[in-house]
């Protein structure tokens, strides 16, 4: 007995001492592998907001899969959760210290701008993905989907579904406590698509709560609520429940992303209500929701393209190639958007959920 307990104690000690060493050893071997061929591998850091949102997970996985092809040594990092500026700042500093050539980042907020500047001063090429930072010239270039356009598409489509009937709208946004561009661009884009006049185009919730929408023949509208859902199912459900409590006659729900839409749908089901739900992202799970009729339409974006194109661009710049430039009329490089719906409407270009499922991201 005594020997066993001693042995186990020794084991604890050994584990402690060697945790770092073991992890070190594992990685070291993979280092030497990648350094094998003639051209030196380019170090790139991919820094997302978190590592749980399927959007970012898809981005990470897509980039990893493409890394070897471009002879890139990719390191994935992220904040611990939405709002963790410090986590991203730390990851940026780590990349600088590691000697990476470039950073792909979905900036959390303006709080990371100073760190991005530090990276660029140190000679790293920084590409923002998905969300352009504020101001946009904080980074070298942004690879993004046009969130405004994505919002407009579902707005236009939603108006055709209302077809002149009064629209009672719930807006399920991202945050209540901070302002990020993806949040207002999708929300305000949706309203613009419906033909509802927005007040400050960079501010959610300051539009008139009642009035007329002009798209697809037009009609009366009522905005019941702007609720923050934090981009997740549980938040979506809670937010929708609050909105239904205010007004049970909601017939149109805008959701920031598909997890929010799934949560909103659960709340509607529980309350025994139906409404047209529109969303943005176009992840495979989201497209499936369109097939199932849960989501009426979603604007599909291509995060894998962002990450892989961004990585290619950095590799190219690092090897002396030319730098990418923004698309005409935009302050970022657009990686595209398409409306996915099985109820195609006149005047709104769309693809079916079957088509969408072939080019979707995530699982």
């Amino acid at each position: 007995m005594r020997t066993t307990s001693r042995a186990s104690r020794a084991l604890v000690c050994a584990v402690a001492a060697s945790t770092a060493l073991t992890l070190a050893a594992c990685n070291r071997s993979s280092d030497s592998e990648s350094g094998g061929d003639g051209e030196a591998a380019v170090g790139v850091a991919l820094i997302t907001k978190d590592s749980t949102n399927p959007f970012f997970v898809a981005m990470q996985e897509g980039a990893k899969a493409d890394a070897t092809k471009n002879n890139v040594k990719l390191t994935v990092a992220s904040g611990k959760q939405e709002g963790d500026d410090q986590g991203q700042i730390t990851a940026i500093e780590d990349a600088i210290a590691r000697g990476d050539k470039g950073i792909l980042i979905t900036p959390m907020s303006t709080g990371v701008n100073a760190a991005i500047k530090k990276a660029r001063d140190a000679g790293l090429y920084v590409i923002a993905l998905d969300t352009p930072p504020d101001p946009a010239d904080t980074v070298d270039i942004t690879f993004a989907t046009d969130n405004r356009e994505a919002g407009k598409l579902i707005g236009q489509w939603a108006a055709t579904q209302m077809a002149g009937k009064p629209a009672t709208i719930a807006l399920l946004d991202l945050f209540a406590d901070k302002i990020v561009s993806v949040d207002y661009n999708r929300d305000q884009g949706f309203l613009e698509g419906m033909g509802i006049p927005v007040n400050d185009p960079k501010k959610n919730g300051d539009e008139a709560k009642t009035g007329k929408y002009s798209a697809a023949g037009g009609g009366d509208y009522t905005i019941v609520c702007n609720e923050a859902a934090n981009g997740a199912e549980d938040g979506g459900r809670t937010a929708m429940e609050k909105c239904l409590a205010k007004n049970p006659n909601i017939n149109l729900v805008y959701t920031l992303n598909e997890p929010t839409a799934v949560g909103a749908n659960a709340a509607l089901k529980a309350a025994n209500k139906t409404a047209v739900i529109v969303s943005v992202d176009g992840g495979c799970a989201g497209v499936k929701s369109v097939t199932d009729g849960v989501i009426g339409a979603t604007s599909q974006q291509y995060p894998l393209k962002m990450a892989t194109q961004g990585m290619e661009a950095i590799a190219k710049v690092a090897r002396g190639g030319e730098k990418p430039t923004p698309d005409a009329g935009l302050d970022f490089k657009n990686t595209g958007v398409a409306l996915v719906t099985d109820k195609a409407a006149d005047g709104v270009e769309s693809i079916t959920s079957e088509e969408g499922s072939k080019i979707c991201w995530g699982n």
Partner: protein
Amino acid sequence: MSTDVTSAAAEFARRQQSPLQRVQHQLHRRPWLSPLFLLVAAFIGFFIATPTFLTPNSMGILLQQTAIVAALAVGQTLIILTAGIDLSVGAIMVLSMMVMATLAKDDGMPGILALLIGVALAVGAGFLNGLLVTRINLPPFIVTLGTLSIFTAIALLYSGGSSIQAEHLPRLLNFLGEGFGIGEFRITWGIVVVILIYAVMAYVLSQTAWGRYVYAVGDDPESARLSGVPSKRVLLAVYTVAGLVYGLAAWILIGRAGAATPNAVPDANLQSITAVVIGGTSLFGGRGRLIGTLIGALIVQTLQFGLSQMGVDQQWRVLATGILVIVAVAIDQWIRKVKS
């Protein structure tokens, strides 16, 4: 005669100890040795593993990354030494930071005044925690769970949820982000402040009567009271001093982040508790050293930073931190089992 017998017996007992037991005994006397050992092991490991780890530049960055949590962990250590816990650390820091930044930017207040008001507010927040713990006799966990939400909400309401960039702030508020370099090794004034906080509080804890009272109150509050220690006053002071430390951390954070953001360091409470626990301070109070906390904070950040330099992905780093906490506490438990 009897003296001879006992000391002979003690000598006999000493000879009976195995080498491992002797190590255990030494570690028991200096509980911060085992985290220090872990830290050194991590340094050696990462030095072997990656060329970018043990460079002057990297070491400067490592210290900067550790600074905030290390500062917060001072307050957390004080409170945990009294057998309490503070979940509102980050909330107090962020509240203080947003108030400093907003006063300076929107109200055009001079930097020094904004700074003093912000720090004073943090002191007040700590004092409020202390009042609730000592006067209404609520458990610290509950008190700070409540004030965590309250202070977070006030910070968001007050700041309107938007962040304030460094260029809108007076130089004094950003000052701790500036620093000096010894070659590539860059030290910010924020790091200097953290080191000063540690030096002062380590002195207070080990060299003054108040420091002893902190340990006494944490170990056995009733015995402390019967021995003439003003337990409630000591507790109240501990929470208030912790508030002061959080206020200074707020100042450091503005300089480090280059902005004041209401969502900064969302899990500051867990990070600071992790540093304290790894540093060998008992969650049951009365036992622990501040130097251990500093080492604990450094270990966590070293592991994170070292793994990142090796190109290990984030998810694995989180996993490694989890293992580290359990290993560190397991060693600590083993040390504490030593028999007299």
